[in-house]
């Protein structure tokens, strides 16, 4: 096989020589698209346009103005967050840090959970690094050299992860921001730390390395980033409003339903909530099907 078949979002396909890049595909579609492309989804994964095509797959190209372009900003902000954490907590181990529909997160192994004070310091450090500009520079290594590079950087978990994949002949990309930070990543990013228009660190929560609850506990920093301060503010206002109308809070305030330790994950419906059921379904609701054994055993004497 010397060519790869690339499926476009409209279902059409085109063929490119193996080891072409996504940028080559964009050029083949049209010069205008090639110019506006800032990244792409290759087989559903966010990638830089430098991504090599090593087999058949599907592509969806992200252009400057498209809604997905915000992913580049968030992806870049995740790097900036990790850079700041490593400067403040040099012993921290990096996990992964993807962009999300709402912002980004990055996972770290640290001795102590992050405090609100730590988060404020991390955000301040992010602003300090952003002020320095620090362009994202792509560097490509083969898997063996990439493993060595990760060990050199002290990214033990990432090195183990890469070795486990047993990749051969692939290109592993790193993104380096001056002499301040480097991370293994498929991209894409904005031009530099300084080119992230608006960002904010939001919270920290517990997580596990690769989502395995019996594995290594980590701390996840959640943040978000937007193309402008105004959009960031609008988002934060919405988050604040969503908190105010959190159904768990309103559910108990309005006496609709409640949750109890006797049956985690099973709502207990109150009279007001049953009205909602009746209106939506024309009938009432079933009560919870499972509660802890102790809640049955607690009744020691038969009731009259």
């Amino acid at each position, binding site marked *: 096989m010397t060519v790869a078949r690339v499926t476009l*979002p409209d279902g059409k396909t085109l063929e490119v020589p193996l080891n072409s890049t996504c940028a080559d595909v964009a050029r083949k579609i049209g010069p205008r698209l090639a110019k506006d492309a800032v990244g792409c989804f290759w087989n559903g994964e966010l990638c830089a346009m430098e991504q090599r095509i090593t087999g058949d797959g599907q592509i969806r190209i992200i252009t400057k103005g498209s809604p997905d372009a915000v992913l580049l900003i968030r992806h870049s902000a995740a790097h900036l967050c990790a850079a700041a954490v490593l400067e403040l907590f040099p012993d921290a181990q990096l996990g992964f840090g993807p962009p999300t529909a709402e912002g980004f997160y990055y996972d770290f192994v640290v001795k102590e959970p992050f405090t609100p004070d730590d988060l404020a310091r991390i955000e301040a450090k992010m602003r300090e690094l952003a002020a320095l500009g620090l362009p994202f520079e792509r560097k490509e290594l083969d898997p063996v050299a990439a493993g060595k590079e990760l060990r050199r950087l002290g990214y033990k978990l990432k090195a183990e992860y890469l070795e486990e994949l047993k990749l051969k002949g692939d290109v592993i990309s790193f993104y380096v921001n001056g002499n301040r930070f480097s991370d293994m990543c498929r991209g894409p990013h904005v031009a530099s730390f300084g080119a992230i228009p608006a960002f904010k660190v939001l919270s920290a929560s517990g997580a596990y390395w690769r989502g395995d609850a019996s594995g290594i506990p980590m701390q996840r920093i959640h943040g978000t980033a937007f193309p402008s301060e105004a959009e960031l503010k609008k988002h934060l206002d919405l988050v604040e409003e969503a908190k105010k109308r959190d159904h768990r809070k309103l559910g108990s305030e*309005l006496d609709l339903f409640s949750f109890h330790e006797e049956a*985690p*994950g099973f*709502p207990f419906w109150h009279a007001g909530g049953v009205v909602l059921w009746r209106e939506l379904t024309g009938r009432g609701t079933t009560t919870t099907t*499972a509660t802890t054994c102790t809640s049955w055993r607690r009744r020691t004497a038969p009731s009259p």
Partner: protein
Amino acid sequence: MYFVEKEDRSFAVKPMNCPGACIVYRTAMRSYKELPLRLAEFGMVHRYELSGVLHGLFRVRGFVQDDAHVYCTPDQIEAEVIDCLDMLEKVYKVLGFGVPEIKLSTRPPDRMGSDEIWDKAEGALAGALRNWGKSYREAPQEGNFYGPKLDFDLTDSLGRKWQCGTIQLDFQMPERFGLEYVGKDSGRHRPVMIHRAILGSLDRMIGVLVEHYAGKFPVWLAPTQALLLPVTDKTLPYAKDVEARMRAVGLRVDVDERNEKIGAKIRDGIGRRIPYLLVVGEREAAAGTLSVRPRDGEDRGALPAAEVIEDIRKRHASRALDL
């Protein structure tokens, strides 16, 4: 899943409704004349979720689905899907949501069934969507291995997306359950199965509605639709009389009988997000009126009680979104 062992047999607490529908289908030899056969239920299902990921009504371990399974011939798919879309549009409108975002997921590389049946099924879904006239997004290769599907995302008042509705074609389950019907040609054929849910999980939908409305439900959903507020004990009998008249026409109404200042009663009523606060002073009692304070908007002043009751009743019956 949750498992139970009894009498040397192992049982699972039902995680999905579909097999039950297939078992019901199988209880008789079906003829093409019975198709499409539509089986709908509010079915409770149980899924084991790690305790760490449970989240109010959004992520639970047991929930009720508005689930339906339609068994039909390949030629009937399009008409059935058009029916589902009609119902879906009506339901979302009643709930106060706009047009959903629609995604058509087509054949994945690894799949079962002939290209012929996939062509037919995808063509039927696309045809039904065109007939419906709403724009949709196509997701090539994102279909289930057992059939193409439609997904519907609702946007709430904060702009958040909630995947609720789904219409999924299934070529596999009829095969696994050995479902057949006798065709016009007297031969045995396999029906196509359509899974469809409009609200998805009822429990989750209630959570979405609470947040969409911030607890300020339209009249038809509000647990208490109106609260009568007697200013003093003297007007309590009149308030009770109006309450009885409202209940008689099927409205959910309460009287705040507490010995509190009217201001405090109004504040509590607002806190409970009750659509209508109806203040009853001596003047109202004498004139047979009610002073109407809708939850949002201007006070309406004193209006004849019969008129107020009829107005609320009409909004309830028509499931009006405004007060």
